[in-house]
């Protein structure tokens, strides 16, 4: 069971690595929508619902550092917003119907909206001069909406990879040999 969870954590981190790389190299969202979409909050929601807090922490630290490395953000700044979102979702996960597409959509939208907002607020409070204007509002809406819409797909994609590459789930049948009724000869 532990090895299975470990594989899921590795898978989430690998997806985060590829997501950050894709955000830095794919210019199509920026050209078409005017904003780059961040998939780290979506992956954080997945990790918070399907793995433990150590994986949430690892994703926040590594994902945040990778993102800040390729961006002009202060190194380590993106860790806190990501972890905060993961933390909140993780401790309410028993109340969330995680397999429901609507729940995934709502959580992904909220996370994709909150994480960049917190990052910008942290940087502004640190005295950083950011490129902000009325256009930033559109960029935030695009990040929130596209992040939310992508969440169910990301959930299915990570689950699919987990099923294909990870350990197969043990399926319990309703048949129990110790409860079998042996009938004698009539």
């Amino acid at each position: 069971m532990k090895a299975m969870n470990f594989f899921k954590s590795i898978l989430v981190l690998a997806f985060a690595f590829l997501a950050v790389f894709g955000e830095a190299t794919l210019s199509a969202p920026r050209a078409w929508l005017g904003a780059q979409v961040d998939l780290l909050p979506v992956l954080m929601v997945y990790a918070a619902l399907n793995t433990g807090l150590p994986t949430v922490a690892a994703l926040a630290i590594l994902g945040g550092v990778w993102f800040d490395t390729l961006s002009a953000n202060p190194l380590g700044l993106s860790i806190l917003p990501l972890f905060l979102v993961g933390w909140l979702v993780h401790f309410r996960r028993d109340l969330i119907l995680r397999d429901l597409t609507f729940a995934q959509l709502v959580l992904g939208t909220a996370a994709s909206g909150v994480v960049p907002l917190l990052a910008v607020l942290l940087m502004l409070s640190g005295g950083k001069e950011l490129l902000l204007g009325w256009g930033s509002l559109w960029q935030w809406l695009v990040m929130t909406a596209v992040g939310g819409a992508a969440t169910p797909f990301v959930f299915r994609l990570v689950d699919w990879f987990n099923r294909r590459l990870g350990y197969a789930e043990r399926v319990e049948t309703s048949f129990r040999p110790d409860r079998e009724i042996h009938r004698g000869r009539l």
Partner: protein
Amino acid sequence: MFKNINYLALGAVLLVVVVLLSLPTRATARLKLAAGSWFLPLFGLSSAAHQLPVDLADNLLPRRELLREIYELRHANDQFKSQALQTEAIRRENDQLRALFGWERQRPWRLQLANVIMRDPANWWRTVRIDRGSLQGLTNNLPVLSADGSLIGRIASVGRYDAQVVLIGDRNCRVSALVENSARDMGVVTASDPLDTSLVELAYLASNASLKPSQAVVTSGLGGVFPKGIPIGRIADFQPVEYGLYTEARIKLDADLGSLEQVWVLFP
């Protein structure tokens, strides 16, 4: 409910954040470059994947088309040769005149071509990363030009194999600029709208600046980072600001910042 491992995870996150955010700038820059090198193999793969269709198209190009291109290139090359001869004569004359007046000799610019390998994933910065670093002699604050020679930004940080370029329009790339009109009006190129990469603001122009749309804007040479005379763009529109105390103009950039593939690093 709250297990030890949860406390450990929380402690680890807080510790990493506090340590990273309190590191000195130089250490942070080094850490960033070290962590960024994890992505270098993927950047190599990505550029190879981009190059593949180009190579395929080159292989499929008909011979007639290739011969026509060779003919055109030879013709252009002959023209450039004659222009280079004229330029050399003008340069010699310029040097002689400078020697007569006792002016300092101008050193010719040295250029190095670099490929853009990534853009900033955050929407609130305007930076790109190029595939040349300190091994190729790059240092901080070197001007960077587009493929057709107009200003796009300056080097912000340098790694061994790559460097980060902060683009014009980002709040961390201010350029002293000169409008090529009779009054030689001067201002500072500052930020632009986050959505439109083709326009930047030219602030702190005099209230009586004699601006007209489509006047050329070049670097003024003040500030010591950008040499004088590098083209930036053209005046798009202008308006008085701060109750007419000074004028602010918008510049349509010559370079297309949204589709940079190759850039020149300028060694003044």
